[in-house]
């Protein structure tokens, strides 16, 4: 139904200019007027479909179905590389498809549902994709061996062909597809020895980027359906409030305005285009029933959080005797606080809906395609199998599109519209009705003896996102995300306790935000470690290196970043370098940020350097890009990010008052990828956790001021002497 289908892409080369070939991206929009069941594995009948990820037709066209979504992190390219590597596919013949909603076939093995998040696409799918590719390869070889009546072990595969070298015979995958399709899939196909990888580990060019340079890529917000109308919405500005009364007389006189829709919690205007809808919204006179949250402010949220943080928490990790340890040596205590944050994806929230007598069809970009399908079904009042979801490239996820509220509201609006309607949020709605990164408070006590930490008591207080979003992740009072990178902090400390106190902020909905739990715990841990190093009179990197024997991969990353960042070299007055290390998401990363603080307390970024051991780097250029971008995402939040609440509503509204780092504020960023044979780690969120503590520690080095809260308080560091 989509009238602006994306043309095929054909460009695949190594960045270094070696291998050439066509890597085709094909979209299979169902060309049907009425919704049909979207549960069958494949619509066409391929000759060879050994599993849910691969199908090969008689021409050799090899279609790979992407179980994870592409939101910029490069995962479509990495997934295709893994499948193609084990298959020995020809990259010229590969086409990619977004997976349809189907948890049975495409669930993320870690979550058990079709979800893309937690930087785990490659970690979760590594074995499954390799086995899928290897099974296909084994079956194609078996088909050729049977045809030639030779031992399969005497055959080999490469570049989409099977060869029997002894008799100099070769058949293409397309020629073998039909016969291979009649064979049983092997239970335990033999995987390649990583030393034989020909694609994995090389910087392969992304297949999704050519159409992102010429306007042809289609995001959810670009979906165009024949005869569609355009709508925008306004939700009660106070969380949980309702519509009391609407005067739509003026709005309805505007050119292009077709319809005003009033629901319990929101108003929407439907028009011939977004401008009509937006002007119509501005023309409405709405009286709200603001409800019980209308008195909540940021002060209430912080007071509640601070009170909760004084309680004992649930013990998530205990080693040695922390209280005995605290009684030895010199004791230090500190609290660290992190603010509410919005996601501000560049693509505002949107969803296009077409309700018919038969069911519901939606067009959007989501990180949780089966949840989007379920949300649409519920809001439309139809069975799940009557909902077709067209998933799209995503213009920034960052966790925002792990939620389905934009689907729910769009379908509820569409129930009042005759024909298809695209619902697009204004940026103001996007900022003011986000699902926010929660406030956190971390209370830490430690003792130092002979320059080493002997005891470490760490309490994290904050919202449990898992309890709402993924209940198996919240058990016995412990949210596994909230304590991530705290219970597994990397330092050798003999006495250690980690506690968790669940505290939900009043009024404000909370959700995952790129970097998730590690953002909070890496920040608090690394800030406090720097303060302890200073109290011990030891260089921050030397202090850390002395406690990392148990985590050698992190120790090696730290040694490398010390060398690459110029650690210890002279700097101007009020400039400093700060370091952070982290074991988060299965990757080992050390980062140095260099910054200067001017007399007014403004912070100027000078340089950032990271060393990363992420195990096998499937596509090394993507690793570098994710670190560069993640650091900027995290530094943006450290320098500017805070959502504040006044009278139950969000104070900020757009990029003028919810500030983003811009190009003129961004320093050179160097990323050094350490070669490793370990299993791949996660990467998409790592830089976000790395940037803020390294920056804060740079400011600490430059000014001597130990900031304990983000965003950076300029007044606290203005005109202070280092």
């Amino acid at each position: 139904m989509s009238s602006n289908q994306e043309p095929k892409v054909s460009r695949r080369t190594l960045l270094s200019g070696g291998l050439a070939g066509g890597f085709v991206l094909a979209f299979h929009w169902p060309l049907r007027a009425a919704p049909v069941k979207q549960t069958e594995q494949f619509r066409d009948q391929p000759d060879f479909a050994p599993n849910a990820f691969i199908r090969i037709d008689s021409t050799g066209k090899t279609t790979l179905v992407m179980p994870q979504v592409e939101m910029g992190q490069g995962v479509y390219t990495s997934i295709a590389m893994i499948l193609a590597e084990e298959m020995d596919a020809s990259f010229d013949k590969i086409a990619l498809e977004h997976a349809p909603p189907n948890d049975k076939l495409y669930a993320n093995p870690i979550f058990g549902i079709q979800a893309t998040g937690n930087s785990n696409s490659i970690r979760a799918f590594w074995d499954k994709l390799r086995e899928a590719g290897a099974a296909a390869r084994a079956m194609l070889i078996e088909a050729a061996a049977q045809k030639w009546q030779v031992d399969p072990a005497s055959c080999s595969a490469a570049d989409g062909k099977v060869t029997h070298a002894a008799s100099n015979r070769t058949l293409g995958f397309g020629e073998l597809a039909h016969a291979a399709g009649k064979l049983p899939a092997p239970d335990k196909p033999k995987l390649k020895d990583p030393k034989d990888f020909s694609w994995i580990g090389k910087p392969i060019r992304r297949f999704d980027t050519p159409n992102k340079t010429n306007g042809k890529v289609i995001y959810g917000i670009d979906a165009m359906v024949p005869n569609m109308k355009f709508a925008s919405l306004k939700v009660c500005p106070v969380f949980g409030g309702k519509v009391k009364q609407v005067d739509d007389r003026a709005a309805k006189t505007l050119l292009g305005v077709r319809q005003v829709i009033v629901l319990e919690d929101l108003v929407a205007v439907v028009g011939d285009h977004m401008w009509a809808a937006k002007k119509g919204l501005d023309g409405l006179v709405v009286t709200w029933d603001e409800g019980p949250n209308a008195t909540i402010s940021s002060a209430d949220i912080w007071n509640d959080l601070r009170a909760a943080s004084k309680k004992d928490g649930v013990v998530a990790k205990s080693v040695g005797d922390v209280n005995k340890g605290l009684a030895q040596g010199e004791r230090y205590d500190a609290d660290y606080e992190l603010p509410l944050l919005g996601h501000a994806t560049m693509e505002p929230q949107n969803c296009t809906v077409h309700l018919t007598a038969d069911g519901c069809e939606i067009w959007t970009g989501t990180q949780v395609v089966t949840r989007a399908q379920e949300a649409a079904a519920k809001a439309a009042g139809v069975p799940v199998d009557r909902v077709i979801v067209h998933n799209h490239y995503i213009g920034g996820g960052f966790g925002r599109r792990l939620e389905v509220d934009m689907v729910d509201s769009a379908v509820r609006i569409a129930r009042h519209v005759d024909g298809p309607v695209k619902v697009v949020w204004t940026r103001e709605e996007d900022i003011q009705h986000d699902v926010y990164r929660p406030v956190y408070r971390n209370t830490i006590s430690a003792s130092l003896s002979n320059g080493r930490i002997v005891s470490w008591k760490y309490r994290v207080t904050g919202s449990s996102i898992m309890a709402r979003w993924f209940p198996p992740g919240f058990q016995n009072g412990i949210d596994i995300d909230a304590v991530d990178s705290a219970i597994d902090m990397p330092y050798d400390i003999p006495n250690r306790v980690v506690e968790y106190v669940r505290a939900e902020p009043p009024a404000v909905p909370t959700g995952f935000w790129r970097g998730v739990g590690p953002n909070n715990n890496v920040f608090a841990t690394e800030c406090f470690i720097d303060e302890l190093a200073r109290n011990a009179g030891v260089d921050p990197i030397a202090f850390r290196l002395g406690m990392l024997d148990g985590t050698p991969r992190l120790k090696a990353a730290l040694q490398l970043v010390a060398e690459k960042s110029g650690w210890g070299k002279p700097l101007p007055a009020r400039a400093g370098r700060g370091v952070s290390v982290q074991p988060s998401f299965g990757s080992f990363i050390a980062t140095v940020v260099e910054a200067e603080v001017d007399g007014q307390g403004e912070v100027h970024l000078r340089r950032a350097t990271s060393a990363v051991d992420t195990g096998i780097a499937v596509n090394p250029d993507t690793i570098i890009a994710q670190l560069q971008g993640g650091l900027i995402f995290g530094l943006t939040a450290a320098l500017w990010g805070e959502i504040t609440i006044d009278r139950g509503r969000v104070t900020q509204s757009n990029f003028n008052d919810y500030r983003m780092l811009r190009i003129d504020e961004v320093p050179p960023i160097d990323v050094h990828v350490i070669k490793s044979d370990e299993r791949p780690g996660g990467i998409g969120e790592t830089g976000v956790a790395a940037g803020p503590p390294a920056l804060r520690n740079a400011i600490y080095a430059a000014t001597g001021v130990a900031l304990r809260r983000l965003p950076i308080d300029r007044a606290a560091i203005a005109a202070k002497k280092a």
Partner: protein
Amino acid sequence: MPFTIKVNGTPHQVEVDGDTPLLWVLRDILGMTGTKFGCGIAQCGACTVHVDGNPVRSCLLPVASIGDHPVTTIEGIGATKTGAKVQKAWLDLEVIQCGYCQSGQIMSATALLAKNPHPDSADIDAAMAGNICRCGTYVRIREAIKRAAGET
């Protein structure tokens, strides 16, 4: 009220209020979705197009103000020599992540290079500071503009 605007060399007649921003005429009426909506208040640059070769934020540009000045969008920029070089440099250095802001980034970069074929870092920062990228591709944008300039 009817307006005729020339986009990528082709005239289009549209019937809208004169205050309708060019962005929504392009996207919702002409179906040219390459130009993106990001903020609606000229703060993010996602909607950048060229009018007479100058970069403008189409989210605040009323259609009535365009007259017969030619409009170029991301769909048409590859037909210009400088635009094609910028697109190639963007791919050679693998600038793009999610890509949503990149139409605007490429339009701003092309406008810069068309006026100033050899910009220094300060010129690049000044010309590109109006374009936000949430994925944080700025480091590579800077390199790609220099790469494109080197190939001029």
